[in-house]
C-alpha cells in the first residue's frame, strides 16, 4: 500500500464520537426551532433502493445524520444454511444484485478452497472476463443513477445503453441477463458458446469510445464539477479506520486493490493499472470508477486473447464427486447416473473447516466466511458486504454538507441495498 502524496484532505479525524456512524446535532442547536428533522427514505427516488436517512437540517446545512438500514433484509445467510452447497450458489448473486458475478465468484472460490479443487485455466480466465464485464456494468449503474440524481438525466440513457450491451453478452453466454449462476464448483456450468469472442471484441472496441462520451458529457460540466468537487471529504486514515475499500478507498489516495495486492484468479498474469486519486471527494470517486472501466476493458481484451487459444480445453474439472457428469453419459453409464442422482438429491460433502475468501468486487472487498461441518450443507455462511461498510462512512462524509450534497455523497459511496441488508 502506498498513500499518494498530495495536500492533506483535512487535519485530524472527522469520525464522530462516541458513535462512529452517527453525526450528532450539536447540543446548542438541539431542541431549538432552527433544526428540522427530516426523514429521507426508505422510499425515495434518490436513496438507491431502500436506505433511510434521519437528517437534522439547520436551514440547508446538514447538522446531524443517521443511516437506518435493514429494509431489504431477506435472510440470505440463513436460507443458504438450508440448501446444499451447489444449490446455495444461486443466492450470493442476488445479494449484491448489481455486482452479481463477483458475488457468485467469491462463494464458489470459498467452496473450492474447502474442497481443495483445482480449476482448469479456461474456467479461470472466463471467470475473470465475466467479473470484469460485471465491474463495468456495476460502474455504469453507479454513473447513470448517480448523475441522474444530480440532474444529469442524459447520462442515465447513455450508461444504460452500454449496460444493455453487457447484459446481452451475459445472455449470450449463460442464457440469462442477470444472476447467471454460470460459475459452478470446479469451473463453469457450460462451455463458452461460439460467437461469444467476436461479440465481446466488438464490445471492447466500442466501450472506450462510450467512456469518452461520458467524460464529454459531464467531465467538464460546470454544474457537475460544482456539485462534486470538495464534497463528501474522507481522508485516507479515516477511510481505513472505517473499513472502506474499493473505489472509495482509492479516491482517498490509498493505492489498494486486492486484484494487485492479493491476486486471485489470474490477475497476476494480466496487465492493468490501479487508478488512485487523492482528494477524497465525490468527484474523485467518480474519476476512479471511470478509469477503472477503461482498465477493465483492457483486462477483458487480454482474457479474450488467452481464451481464444484454449479452444478445446475443458471448462470444468473432472472430479465426479463434485461435478455433474455430462448429460449424454446418463443414458449409457450406470455410474454416471448414480453420481448425478447423488449430487442432485444429497449434494456433495465438503470437508470440515472454515475459510475466509476475499475478492475485489466493484464496491470493494467482498469477503465470504464459510464454515462446513463436513456435510452437504454449509453450516454458516457470512458475507462481508462492502456496501454495508460504505454506509458507515456517511456520517463522516457529511461534515459541513448541504442537503443537496447529501444526495451526491450517498450516491458516491455506491451502496447496493441488497448487499447492505443481505
Amino acid at each position, binding site marked *: 500500500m502506498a498513500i499518494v502524496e498530495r495536500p492533506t484532505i483535512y487535519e485530524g479525524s472527522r469520525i464522530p464520537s462516541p458513535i462512529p456512524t452517527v453525526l450528532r446535532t450539536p447540543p446548542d442547536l438541539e431542541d431549538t426551532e432552527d433544526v428540522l428533522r427530516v426523514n429521507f427514505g426508505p422510499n425515495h427516488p434518490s436513496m438507491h433502493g431502500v436506505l433511510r436517512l434521519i437528517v437534522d437540517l439547520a436551514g440547508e446545512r446538514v447538522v446531524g445524520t443517521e443511516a437506518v438500514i435493514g429494509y431489504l433484509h431477506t435472510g440470505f445467510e440463513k436460507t443458504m444454511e438450508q440448501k446444499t452447497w451447489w444449490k446455495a450458489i444461486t443466492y450470493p448473486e442476488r445479494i449484491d444484485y448489481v455486482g452479481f458475478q463477483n458475488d457468485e465468484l467469491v462463494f464458489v472460490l470459498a467452496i473450492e478452497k474447502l474442497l481443495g479443487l483445482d480449476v482448469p485455466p479456461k474456467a479461470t480466465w472466463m471467470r475473470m472476463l465475466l467479473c470484469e464485464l460485471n465491474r463495468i456494468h456495476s460502474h455504469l449503474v453507479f454513473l447513470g443513477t448517480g448523475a441522474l440524481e444530480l440532474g444529469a438525466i442524459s447520462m442515465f440513457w447513455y450508461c444504460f445503453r452500454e449496460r444493455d450491451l453487457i447484459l446481452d453478452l451475459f445472455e449470450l453466454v449463460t442464457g440469462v441477463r442477470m444472476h447467471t449462476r454460470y460459475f459452478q464448483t470446479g469451473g463453469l456450468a457450460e462451455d463458452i458458446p461460439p460467437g461469444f469472442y467476436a461479440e465481446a471484441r466488438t464490445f471492447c472496441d466500442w466501450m472506450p469510445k462510450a467512456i469518452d462520451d461520458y467524460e464529454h458529457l459531464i467531465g467538464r460540466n460546470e454544474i457537475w464539477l460544482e456539485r462534486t468537487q470538495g464534497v463528501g471529504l474522507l481522508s485516507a486514515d479515516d477511510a481505513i479506520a472505517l473499513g472502506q475499500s474499493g473505489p472509495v478507498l482509492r479516491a482517498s489516495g490509498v493505492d489498494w486493490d486486492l486484484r494487485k495486492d492479493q491476486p486471485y484468479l489470474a490477475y497476476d498474469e494480466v496487465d492493468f493499472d490501479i487508478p488512485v486519486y487523492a482528494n477524497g471527494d465525490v468527484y474523485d470517486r467518480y474519476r476512479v470508477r471511470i478509469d477503472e472501466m477503461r482498465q477493465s476493458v483492457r483486462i477483458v481484451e487480454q482474457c479474450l486473447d488467452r481464451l481464444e487459444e484454449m479452444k478445446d480445453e475443458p471448462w470444468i474439472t473432472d472430479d465426479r464427486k463434485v461435478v455433474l457428469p455430462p448429460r449424454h453419459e446418463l443414458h449409457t453409464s450406470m455410474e454416471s447416473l448414480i453420481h448425478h442422482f447423488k449430487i442432485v438429491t444429497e449434494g456433495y460433502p465438503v470437508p470440515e473447516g472454515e*475459510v475466509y475468501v476475499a475478492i475485489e468486487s466493484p464496491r470493494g472487498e467482498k469477503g465470504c*466466511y464459510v464454515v462446513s461441518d463436513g456435510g452437504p450443507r454449509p453450516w454458516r455462511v457470512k458475507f462481508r458486504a462492502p456496501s454495508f461498510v460504505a454506509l458507515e462512512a456517511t456520517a463522516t462524509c457529511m461534515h459541513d454538507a448541504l442537503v443537496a450534497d447529501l444526495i451526491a455523497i450517498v450516491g458516491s459511496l455506491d451502496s447496493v441495498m441488497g448487499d447492505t441488508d443481505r
Partner: protein
Amino acid sequence: MTFESVPGVVERKEEHGETTLVVDPARLRDACLHLRDVEGFNFLADITPADYLGWGKRGVAGYYGTEQGRDLNAPSGLGASVASQAYARVPRPKTKRFSVNYHLLALRDGAPRVRVQVWIDDGEALESVVAVWPTADWHEREAWDMMGIRFTGHPNLRRILMEDDWEGHPLRKDYPIGGEPVRFSGEE
C-alpha cells in the same frame, strides 16, 4: 509472522493457508490493540459470529413450522439416515456455543490476514472493539441483532437489520424457519 507476543492467545491454527488465533475472551481487546499497533493490522474486514448449537447432533436446528419437523441441518450419514456418500466422520466437538471471528487485514505488501477467534456461551459478553476500529460499530450491532452476542462498551448496541421490537436472533440455530408469528390473522 509468529504472533508470539499477542496477549491472550490460547491456540494458533494454520488451516487452508489461513492463520487463526484463538484468544481468551477476557483479553480480546488487548489482543486487538496489540495486533493493530504492533503487528500493523489496521483494517478490520469483518466480524462474524457462528452458532455451533447442535454441531454434529440431530434434531436441533432448522425446522419448518413445527419443532418435530424435519431436521435440515443434521448432516446426513449420522444415525438412521440413509446417506452413503456424505459425512465421513463426526466433526470435532466445540467447547462453547458461539465463535466470534474478527477478520483482520494489514494494508501493506503481501496483504497479511489473520482471524482472531473467541469462544463464548450464551449470555456471555465480549468487550467492544469500536474504539480500536470504528468500523466495528455496525458489525457488532449486526452480531447482536442476528446472533444475540452482547458487546460491553459499545456506544449504540441496537438492532440494525431487524425491527427494533423483533424477538429472537434469527441466525441462531434454534430460531425457527417459517415459524415466525403472524401479526394479523383472520381470527381477530
